[in-house]
């Protein structure tokens, strides 16, 4: 008997859960839906100009960046996740944690930092000049390949974190079966682990690609015209909002198609293990030479993705901390923290709601709408900001007129003038970050438990809280912490939607960096990284604890 059909039999077609989920979906999807209507409205008066002179560049650069960065992120993320999960080598425990660290560095700060290291007055050329007395050794990293490498170093932990969680908890029995059958570690990896961990890898790569597509800071500084550049050019320079929306909708369509192709190709295959008992994975202990190779493989992404940029930023901070002494960074730490905790919570709650209802309904249409609602992450933050501002202002203005009807008071902008609006917008944008790990978490829970609960007439709430949530604990933690780190780094939405006198660490560091004071920007950047270490540490503890449980 098909367990899915059986499940559906017990859930009523319309209920509180479905209504709540649909409302949440509509709210979260507002910018996406608004933008998709742009497809119907057509491309706007400046489209011909755009297509003739710019579009090819945008498409080519964006494609190179997405494919290249995702590929490199897989290259840094998968083998390292595999090695630290299955192989004993010196420094493994430390690297396990360090490999998540690059996530705490904002991409554009990483780009600025590397540009600063390699430029003429930067550390590298300085050292060369001082030691060898040679003046010109120019390695220009400010091109599309430079951005690609820098972004992959900043973003590969998405792949690493999700892959490692999968390796540690999901396929233990499969891996062990393969090993008992005499398959070598490499063969186990390629023939068993990779195909089976595909949903997890897709989740990781999806996040990386969307981050690449929505980036504006790094590509702007490096002079690489991408889709995002085009969106801003149409919007601000041509003042052709329609063209900007049209470009954004093409971007969404592109992401949607990739997801569709992946899903079709994967077919109806699902992997979940019936046994949920978890035992520690048998670790391999290879010979010294192999240990060294493994150690090097795992250390390289950490050195380039974390150690080098942090050392450079620390160096700059030492020389510039006096010039930022007048800036109130303590309030900024508090604000960043508050936004991060608030958004992480709301993203996880909404993602669980959507996915749980999706699981009960198991309807294709619902699932696709759900996916669509979370795709706002691929759109540049500034565009999402405007997409969110529209409905919020509508509510605000209604509230003002209601207040004025009852008394002569002007309450001001209750939603958009406070952090409430900002928090909502951040949830809309970062839902995807929470959604992907939780989705792959749900996918690995077999339906048998749900089915048993359902035959026992357990209601939805107790099914969620007593079966799904406990099993999802790890995925929920991963999701919340990923969002947390992301919010610490978030810039465009906060910049536009923040209330008066509200600063976060990211806005502080951006203000200094955009004033071309990269050295001064290092101080808040270092604080972002240090603050980010807390969730990164917890994230690691969470993943390893689960594997030992």
């Amino acid at each position, binding site marked *: 008997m098909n367990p899915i059909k059986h499940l559906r039999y017990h859930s009523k077609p319309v209920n509180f859960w479905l209504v709540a989920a649909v409302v949440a979906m509509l709210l979260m999807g507002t910018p996406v839906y608004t933008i998709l209507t742009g497809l119907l409205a057509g491309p706007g008066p400046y489209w011909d100009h755009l297509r003739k*002179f*710019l579009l090819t*560049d945008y498409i080519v650069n964006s494609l190179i960046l997405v494919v290249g960065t995702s590929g490199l992120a897989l290259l840094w993320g998968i083998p390292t996740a595999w090695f630290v999960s299955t192989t004993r080598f010196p420094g493994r425990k430390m690297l396990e944690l360090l490999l998540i660290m690059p996530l705490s560095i904002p991409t554009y700060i990483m780009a600025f930092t590397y*540009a600063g290291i390699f*430029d*003429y*007055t930067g550390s590298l050329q*300085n050292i060369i000049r001082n030691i060898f007395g040679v*003046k*010109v050794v*120019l390695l*220009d990293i*400010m*091109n599309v390949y430079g951005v690609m490498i820098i972004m992959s170093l900043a973003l590969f932990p998405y792949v690493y974190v999700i892959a490692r969680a999968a390796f540690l908890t999901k396929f233990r029995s499969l891996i062990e079966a393969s090993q008992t059958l005499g398959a070598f570690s490499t063969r186990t990896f390629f023939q068993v682990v990779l195909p089976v961990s595909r949903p997890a890898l897709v989740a990781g790569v999806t996040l990386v690609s969307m981050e690449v597509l929505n980036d504006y800071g790094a590509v*702007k*500084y*490096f*002079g690489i*015209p991408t889709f995002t550049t085009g969106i801003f050019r149409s*919007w601000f*320079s*041509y003042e052709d909002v329609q063209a900007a929306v049209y470009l954004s909708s093409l971007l969404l369509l592109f992401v949607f198609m990739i997801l569709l192709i992946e899903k079709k190709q994967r077919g109806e295959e699902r992997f979940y293990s019936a046994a949920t008992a978890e035992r520690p994975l048998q670790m391999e202990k290879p010979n010294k030479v192999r240990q060294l190779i493994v150690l090097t493989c795992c250390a390289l992404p950490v050195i380039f993705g974390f150690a080098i940029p942090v050392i450079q930023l620390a160096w700059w901070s030492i*020389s*510039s901390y006096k*010039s930022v002494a*007048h800036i109130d960074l303590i309030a900024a730490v508090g604000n960043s923290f*508050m936004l991060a*905790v*608030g958004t992480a*919570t709301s993203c996880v709650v909404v993602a669980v709601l959507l996915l749980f209802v999706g699981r009960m309904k198991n309807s294709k249409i619902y699932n696709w709408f759900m996916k669509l609602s979370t795709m706002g992450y691929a759109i540049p933050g*500034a565009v999402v*900001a*405007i997409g969110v*501002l*529209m409905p919020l*202002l509508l509510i*605000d*203005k209604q509230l003002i007129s209601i207040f004025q009807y009852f008394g002569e008071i002007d*309450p*001001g*902008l209750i939603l*958009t*003038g*406070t*952090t*409430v609006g900002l*928090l909502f917008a951040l949830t809309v944008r970062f839902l995807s970050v929470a959604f992907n790990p939780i989705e792959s978490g749900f996918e690995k829970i077999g339906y048998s438990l749900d089915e048993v609960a359902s035959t026992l007439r357990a209601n939805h709430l*107790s099914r969620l*809280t007593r079966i799904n949530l406990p099993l999802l604990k790890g995925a929920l933690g991963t999701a919340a912490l990923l969002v947390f780190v992301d919010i610490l780094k978030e810039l465009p939405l906060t*910049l*536009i939607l923040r*209330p*008066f*006198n509200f600063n976060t660490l990211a806005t502080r560091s951006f*203000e200094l960096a*955009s*004033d*071309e*004071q990269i*050295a001064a920007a290092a101080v808040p950047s270092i604080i972002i990284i240090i603050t980010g270490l807390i969730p990164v540490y917890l994230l690691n503890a969470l993943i390893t604890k689960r594997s030992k449980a």
Partner: protein
Amino acid sequence: MNSVKSYYNIIFVLVLSMCSPQKSEQTEDQTSAEKMVNLYTHRHYQSDQMLFEDFERETGIKVNVVSASADELIKRMEMEAEASPADVLITVDAGRLHRAKEKDLLQPIESPVLEANIPANFRDKEGYWFGLTFRARVIAYALDRVDPTQVPDYESLTDPRWKGKLLVRSSENIYNQSLMASIIASTGPENAKKWAAAVVSNMAREPKGNDRDQVKAVAAGVGDLAILNTYYIGKLLASDNQQEVAAGKAIGVIFPNQNGRGTHINVSGAGVAKYAPNKENAIKFIEFLSSEDAQRVFAETNFEYPVRSGTSLAPLLESWGSFKADTLDLGQLGEYNRVAVMLFDEVGWK
């Protein structure tokens, strides 16, 4: 079931904590409604922060700030419309002020103080916006490789002798767009397009980086000439990094078109929002920024040219001497912005 309850409790407490500080802030704002001015600004310099504090001390009026890009702030004002809390909009480009005026987001101000402090060519004729500082877009040259008399104007940058020698940032940048707009205004779109095309063919590399990076590239020998704003040279020379200071010292500065229309300048300025809830404070605030003391702070800490004549300059600016500035109506920079960007696209200035 207990764990569920505590879970909801946590969320509830979080939501409460989100709202509460905000509320208290708002009531505070309401009681002191007379005593504040709300600022949307593109500027985020240290000098500004100092000035806001001075203003608060002097008048007791609190300065509330949101800083983001002018384009985004204009969009936000447009959407907020009559509900907008903004009193003053500050941008770093006259073109954007002009755009805000066109979109009906500003209101005309009559202020004898501003009219006395700010020369007419630095403010809107109808009083919609007022320039506070100006900056010149100049040509920096390698002291050891270039004879500055060979580069008397922007037009001479198109000379084939500079093939592979020219450094400039991307056309995404507003300062380049306004320079182009000024060339369109004075020579017409056809000539401007030819100029841009020739500049592109002389470029030493694809446009990238910021203004400072162009100077560094000259010092590194990537090219010989760079287009940039004056205050970045000041900032390089005042840097903590000795290598940056050395790079700043390796270049000379040319103020182009001294025998013609003058060097392209642009203002950073302010306008009072159409729906300003604190209009009086807004005017006081802009007047304060045009005062002698405030103008000196702009000049000294940020290496900008003060609009108010007679204000002492930073020693570096002093050392460059006076120069002839383009007298073009600055609103034209906004008028021609779109055409400028489209011409950049057509000639492939990335």
